[in-house]
Structure formats: structure tokens, C-alpha cells
């Protein structure tokens, strides 16, 4: 009796499959309209719009190096959020769009940036459109355009359940023009609270790529993951995850698929109590473990330990050790081991000064393998304090880079900021001075490169007129022993004004931002100057 129906589905399936992304899109677009009109009485809508016009001018023979688009362009960002209740359900939706005629802002002139509807009560959550149902680090940790449902148990000893289906496009424009691999994602997660101290979860995620883009690979993956967390005693949390992936990679339409199976495991213990916080973690990810939707670095075995200890009320100590290595499958020509120990100390109220904070850190980078050897030392000193009405923040850092027969560099970084705040009648003045420098000594080639920079800023706020502003002028000089030197002069002005005549809006702001950058190289035909002015209006209601 069901045969005709089955036959019909079988016949229509290829067509349905081709139109699947369009159907998902239509479903997402239509969802808010299904329930919004029913509940206008309890409905709240907020709109945010930011419209700006920018005028850029780039002069000089090296103007092709500028990232600015010459001429006048506009950018408009619109977001509409709504929320309300239907019976015992809360709902929310969000729609966003962006329009611009400057391809540096976006390759699309008009974009649908977000589209989401969510309906939830204490137990059930339905989401359509932009859906971020993060399962676990290795299995699913990215948003998709699709639908999800989540059931949360509230003391009934039934597992929490999440199911999701969608397409892992990074933007809605991928549905109607901008190319991206069409990655269909389906998954489910069960999470069971065994008792108050222990929960365990299982996730299954499957993805299938369609529509090859620029001759790139297509992947079909199946990932199963188990994660858990256990708090055996107060302050101690042990958690872990194990995931197994099975991936088919299609390099081209004529080549046979390449199948890879891999696994990833993670175990972490966090002890947190009194003055101490200790974290121990171990991770092992096989070379063939592939997660297109989660987060993992393949071919890595890693152990990490950190200890943060509040020695006294004024002194904090930090210790850390990270070790990791590759070549777990033995396929590479050699294995590389990396050690990254570090130690740091922060001292507050030094010399009985109320606002002083000093910190010192030492970090060591060691890696070796295949005849290569690297030993880098990083030392950093920082001091913050207040002298009278001036706040100061100074940092000095030194790094020694040593790589066998290819690098022997010493690097110094230093910067200091001095700032204050002074009220003069109805004006609040916020002057600041910043000085910075960087030196790199290459001892192998006997080369020294330097950067000097300074800038002076003045912030002026007029609270009675709802105006804030910031002006900054400065220079940056790159001195290179070989290659082009660069002198960069910069000036910028930002003014923000909340006018009374726009008080009908919940929030409004008119802003003007301008900057001038002048790049001058020792090879004159690379010189260029950028002038940019942006005026905009933000309203929210």
C-alpha cells in the first residue's frame, strides 16, 4: 500500500536533494512569520542601524599599496531583534543586513548577515536559521544555517537531547551567489547527568560536502565523540573527551576517495581552591583525525600544566609548562618536540605605593628535531603606577632567538604610556603620551632594524553637550639596515555626539572619524598618503 508513496519519494529524492539548501533557507525565512503576528501584544522589537559615508583619497606613486578604496562609499548595518512570549514559550528572532558599495568592506553589495528564530521554554528549545548548537570541542563547535531542537531534562533523570541539521555556510550569501562548499551537517547529542557530580555525553555528527569549489577537495565525515565531567571533591573538576572520525576525501571527480580514520583524546584536571588554581591537561590527536566542524590540531600530543598561586595578598605567582610533539604516525621525516616553560610574578603595592603593579615573566621556547634546534628566551617587565594625577604604564621586553645555523637574533620591545584626566569647567580633558620602540639585532648577518614611534593624544569630553572626542597625532619610523626605511606620520580625529533632537530613539549617535596617514619610503616611488573621513549615524529603538 505504501509502495506508490515510497516510489514517489525515491523518484523525487534527487530533485529534493538538489533543492535542499533552498528549502532550508525558505523554512528559516518563514519561521518568524509563523508565530510573530499572533503575539504582538507581548512583543518587543529593537532595531539598530548604523549608516556611514566614507570619503577616501589616496595620493602618491605608491598608492596601490593602500587598503583604502578611493572615492566616496557608504556602509549600512541593520539589525532587528524581537522577543516575546507565546503561552509558556519565549521566542526571539534576529534579522540583520549589510549594504555597501565598497568592496573592501564586503565583496557583496547587499548581504543578509543574520537570520534566526528561537522558541523556548524550560524544557524545549527550537532554533531555526543561524544555529550554534555547540556539542563538544572535537565534534561540533561551529554555527550552521539550519534547524535544531534541544530538550533539557529538569530533574526527571532523562538525558538532555540536542539534534541539528543544516548547512555549514559561513554566510547567508552562500545560498545565492558567493561560492562555498555546500557542507550538509546532521548531528545529535545525548547528555546524561548521572548524579550531581558527574555527567557524560555522546555526540554523533555527520557531514557531506557537495558542489566542489575551485577544484578543492570534498569531504564526507562521520564523527562520534564522548565527553564527560566529574567533580569528585570540592574544587576538583576532571573532564575529558574522546572522538573518532571517519573521513572520505575526494580530491577530484575522477580520483578515488581517500579514506582516513583518526582519533582525538583529551583529559583535564582543574584544582581550584583557596589561593591556588592548578590545571593539568593531556591531549593526543592522531594525524588522520579530521574535524571539519569542531576544533582540533591534528598530529599532536600535548601535555600542559599551569599553577596560579596567590602567595600573599600582594604577590601572585604563575608557573606553566607546555610540551607537545608531532609525527605521531611516524610518517614525517622526523619528529619535532617543543617545550614551553614559563614563570611569572605579579607584585601589587610595591614600595607601599597604592596603585603600583609590577610584573615580570620569563618564557623559554625550545624545539628540536631533524637536526633543527631552536632556543628562544622571552623576558618581560611591566610596571603600572600613578604619579600624582598621571597614570603610567611601562613595558620592557627582550627576546633572544636562536635557531641552529639560521637565526641568532635579539629583540627589544619597549613602550610607555602616560595619561591623565582633568576637568576644566564643563570640559573633561584626557591628554596622553605614548612612546614605543622595537629593535632587532640579527647577529648572523650583523643587521640591526629599528622602529621608533610616538604619539600624543587629547581626549575632550563635554558631558553637558553629550560630546566625546579623541585626537591623536604621531609618527612611526622603521629603520632598516637593508631594504627600504619607512617614515609614517599619522593624525586622527574621532568625534561622537548624542544629539537631543534624536531623543525619540532609545539611543542615537552622530559620529565623524577622520585620519591622515603619510607613508614615506626611502624608495620614493613607493610613497603614498591616505586621507579618510567617515560620517555616520547610529540609531537604536
Amino acid at each position: 500500500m505504501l509502495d506508490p508513496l515510497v516510489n514517489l519519494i525515491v523518484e523525487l529524492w534527487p530533485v529534493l536533494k538538489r533543492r535542499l539548501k533552498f528549502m532550508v533557507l525558505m523554512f528559516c525565512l518563514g519561521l518568524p512569520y509563523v508565530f510573530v503576528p499572533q503575539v504582538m501584544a507581548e512583543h518587543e522589537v529593537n532595531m539598530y542601524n548604523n549608516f556611514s559615508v566614507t570619503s577616501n583619497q589616496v595620493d602618491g606613486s605608491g598608492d596601490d599599496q593602500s587598503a583604502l578604496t578611493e572615492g566616496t562609499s557608504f556602509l549600512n548595518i541593520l539589525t532587528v531583534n524581537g522577543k516575546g512570549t507565546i503561552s509558556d514559550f519565549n521566542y526571539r528572532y534576529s534579522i540583520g543586513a549589510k549594504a555597501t558599495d565598497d568592496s573592501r568592506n564586503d565583496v557583496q553589495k547587499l548581504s543578509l548577515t543574520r537570520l534566526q528564530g528561537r522558541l523556548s521554554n524550560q524544557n524545549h528549545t527550537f532554533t531555526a536559521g543561524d544555529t550554534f548548537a555547540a556539542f563538544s570541542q572535537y565534534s561540533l563547535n561551529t554555527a550552521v544555517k539550519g534547524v535544531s531542537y534541544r530538550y533539557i531534562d529538569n530533574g526527571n533523570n532523562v538525558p538532555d537531547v540536542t539534534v541539528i541539521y543544516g548547512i555549514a555556510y559561513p554566510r547567508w550569501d552562500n545560498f545565492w551567489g558567493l561560492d562555498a562548499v555546500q557542507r550538509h551537517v546532521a548531528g545529535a547529542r545525548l547528555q546524561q547527568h548521572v548524579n550531581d557530580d558527574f555527567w557524560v555525553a555522546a555526540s554523533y555528527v555527520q557531514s557531506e560536502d557537495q558542489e566542489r569549489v575551485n577544484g578543492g577537495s570534498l569531504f564526507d565525515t562521520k564523527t562520534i565523540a564522548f565527553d564527560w565531567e566529574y567533580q569528585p571533591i570540592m574544587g576538583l573538576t576532571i573532564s575529558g573527551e574522546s572522538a573518532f572520525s571517519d573521513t572520505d576525501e575526494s580530491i577530484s571527480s575522477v580520483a578515488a576517495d581517500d579514506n582516513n580514520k583518526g582519533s582525538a583524546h583529551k583529559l583535564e584536571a582543574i584544582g581550584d581552591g583557596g589561593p591556588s588554581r592548578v590545571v593539568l591537561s593531556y591531549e593526543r590527536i592522531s594525524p588522520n583525525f579530521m574535524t571539519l566542524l569542531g576544533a582540533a590540531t591534528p598530529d599532536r600530543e600535548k601535555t600542559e600544566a599551569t599553577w596560579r598561586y596567590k602567595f600573599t595578598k600582594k604577590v601572585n605567582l604563575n608557573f606553566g609548562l607546555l610540551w607537545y610533539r608531532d609525527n605521531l604516525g611516524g610518517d614525517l621525516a622526523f619528529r619535532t618536540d617543543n617545550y614551553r616553560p614559563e614563570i611569572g610574578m605579579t607584585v601589587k603595592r610595591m614600595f607601599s605605593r597604592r596603585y603600583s603593579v609590577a610584573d615580570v615573566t620569563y618564557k623559554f621556547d625550545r624545539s628540536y628535531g631533524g637536526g633543527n634546534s631552536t632556543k628562544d628566551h622571552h623576558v618581560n617587565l611591566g610596571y603600572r603606577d600613578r604619579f600624582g594625577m598621571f597614570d603610567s604604564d611601562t613595558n620592557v621586553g627582550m627576546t633572544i632567538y636562536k635557531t641552529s645555523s639560521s637565526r641568532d637574533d635579539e629583540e627589544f620591545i619597549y613602550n610607555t604610556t602616560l595619561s591623565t584626566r582633568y576637568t576644566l569647567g564643563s570640559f573633561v580633558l584626557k591628554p596622553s603620551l605614548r612612546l614605543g620602540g622595537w629593535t632587532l639585532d640579527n647577529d648572523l648577518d650583523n643587521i640591526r632594524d629599528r622602529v621608533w614611534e610616538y604619539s600624543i593624544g587629547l581626549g575632550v569630553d563635554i558631558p553637558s553637550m553629550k560630546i566625546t572626542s579623541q585626537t591623536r597625532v604621531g609618527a612611526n619610523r622603521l629603520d632598516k639596515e637593508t631594504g627600504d626605511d619607512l617614515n609614517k606620520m599619522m593624525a586622527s580625529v574621532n568625534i561622537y555626539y548624542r544629539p537631543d533632537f534624536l531623543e525619540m530613539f532609545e539611543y542615537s549617535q552622530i559620529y565623524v572619524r577622520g585620519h591622515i596617514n603619510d607613508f614615506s619610503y626611502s624608495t620614493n616611488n613607493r610613497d603614498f598618503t591616505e586621507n579618510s573621513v567617515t560620517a555616520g549615524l547610529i540609531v537604536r529603538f
Partner: protein
Amino acid sequence: MLKKIILLTLFISSLVSTNVMAKWWIFGKSEANVATRYLYLNDVAFNELDEQVTLYRDMLPAGQVVLRGKASSGKSSIGKIEVSLDNKETWQKADKSEDGSFEFSFVPEIDRTYQLYVKILNTSGTSNEVDATYREITVSDSDIDTIIRQALDSMIQAYQVEEPRNFMTWIDDDFAGDYVLLDRAIRKDFTAFDALSLNYTLNSVVSGRNGKVFVTFTFNRQVTSSRSGETFVDQGLTEFIFNVTTAKAKVVAMKNPLIFGLSDAESVATGTVNSDENDENLAVDDDGDLRLGPADGDDDSGSFAAPVNLSVLSYGPYPLLTLQFDAPVYVNAASYRLVVEWSRSTSGPWVLDDEPLMPDPFSGQFGLHARPEVNDPSTIYYRVALERISDNQRSSWSDLVSIP
């Protein structure tokens, strides 16, 4: 591998079971018997929260702040559990179950600051360490977009003025690409870059479970290489995941194309954004040189750009031949080897020549013995590629030169 996991599990278990109250991680400093076994604020564990907590109206479940926990009281029974929101001036009873679990919720006022403490008293009158439960809670009216913009603006500002300490305050302890490696990578970025200009516009901002927020944004960037002085421009679409459970949004994951930590993209990025618009993005090689390439930013994942401008610097007396080219990356004998092929025709077949010795330091010039076939009355052609020693990855082939 499984053996190591089991051993580590047994090790941790042994620490737990040896002496529960010793608590090795607080080094002998004892705590009261009366305490919270666990404590969550809107489903986020207390120990993951800073002392100052900002909650955002948009992310409150049913507009409420919910405190949920479980008390333990040693050998005595639990008497009462109270919560103060006003710096211990007044106390309100929490709903308590027989097993010690409790819940307390309130509808907060926007922009008001609550100074929260939890007090547990057992029937003997002993209290927990109340001050250890202190959290200053503020509920902000800011929408999620504003919070994310503040975080990105602050990170870009710190990155542009090269303040690693300030920058890293915006990175979550649970950063998926590893906090320590990102810290090292941005310091290397600061060595590699100068005069950075970076602009972005948000696309989608999607809230998930446990305060996680998924963000996509387009960016454009202009930067000068401090090694070569060359200026690079690129743009693209990328994705971040933020954790919005503390006073500010902190990054827990970043994908290629990266805007931070490019110097160790392999460790920092956890994935690549699936979009055709990311066809050419900035990358930094092991030596700190910049280049434009595919968005995966992974030097080890495939071939790299070819040597260009291959030419004959000198030829003769036979068989002395010196070729030169411009390398796409900083090349030295410790990391790369030269691969040379020759053919009688521009269309091949190509034959592998003896591997020429790469001079150290390498300036783009190298010598080799010309093929004896060059003495035949015909032209022969050469082409060159670079091969990275660490993983045997080979660049594309250069253009051709002919001899004589």
C-alpha cells in the same frame, strides 16, 4: 596511547583518593568543612567566573539571575542557606533540598551592581568561608553585538600598539588553539609586522550554550613587513567563538584566515572558514616573512609559491653554470633544498638533475654543472623548485630558462 590515558587517569584518581581533605593543590591551606560542593551562576561554574561578573540582559534565561549549588556540611546537617545581594547587609533564604542542593533566583535591575555572598550554616552553627563566594554582579543592557565589538576593538587596539599583555586579557583560558601558543605567536607577529591597519564589520553573531557566542566578520588589512619593508593588503571572512561569561567577551577559538597569531597559524587556528572569498590571505612563515596565499595559512598543508624570475646569471666555461631566481619565502640551507629539472623541450619530458648545493647564506644564486647535452646542437631548458626539508613539501615550478 590508551595506556597513557589510563595511567594519567589512575594518577589523578590516586591523588583524589589518597587524602581527600589534604587538597594537594592548595598546599596545606585548609578550608572549612562547611562549603559549597558546586556553585553555578546562570549555569556557569563559579570557579570559571572572575570576581567581577557582567551579565548581559540578552543572555539572561527568562530575565533572571539563577544561583544553583550544593552545600556540604561535614558531619552535621545543613541548617540554612542564605544569599546576600547587598554586601552582607541583608540576607535572603535560598530554596534548599534535603541533599544540600539549593537554588536562588532574582530578576535583576539593569546597570545595578549586586555584591553577592552565599552563607551556609550547619546545625552546629559553623559557617562556610563566606568571603570566598563573593562576586560583584552587574547586569548590562548592552546587546551582544556591542559586547563583541568592544572585545574586537580592544584586541585590535592592543595588537596595533603591540601590547601582548593587554591583548591576552581578551583570550579565554580554554582557548582551543592553546593560550600559551597564541601568546608566543602574537609576539612573533609583532616582530614580523609594522604599521598595521585592520578594519572589520560584523556579519552574524549567534549565541549558543554556556555563554558561547559564534561570530563571523569580514575584515580588510594593510601591513608592512618589518623584514622586507614591503606592504601587503588582504581581506576576507573569518570566524571567532567568544565566551561571554566573565566581565568581558573572551576568545575561545579562531579560524583561518587569522587576524591574530599568524606566525603560528597551525597551532592557533582551529579550522578554516569555508568560503571562496578567502582566496588570498596574509600568512607568516617560520622566518617571519610575509606572503599572500590560501586561507588555510598552513605552510605544512600543501605546496607553496614557486620561485620566480629564473634567469642565467653566467654560463661558461663549460660546464660552469650559475642560475638565479627570486624566492617566494625566506630561504636558507637549513630549511630548504633546491630541486632542478632539465628537458630538451619546454613541454618535457623533464628529468631530475643532480641536487645542486644551496649556498649558505642563500641570495637566490646557485651554481651547477650544465648537462653534457648542452653541447648537442639543441637547446636545453631548466626549471627550479624549492623543497622544505621538514616535511618534503615542494613548491610549484619556476618559469623556464634555456641554455645556451
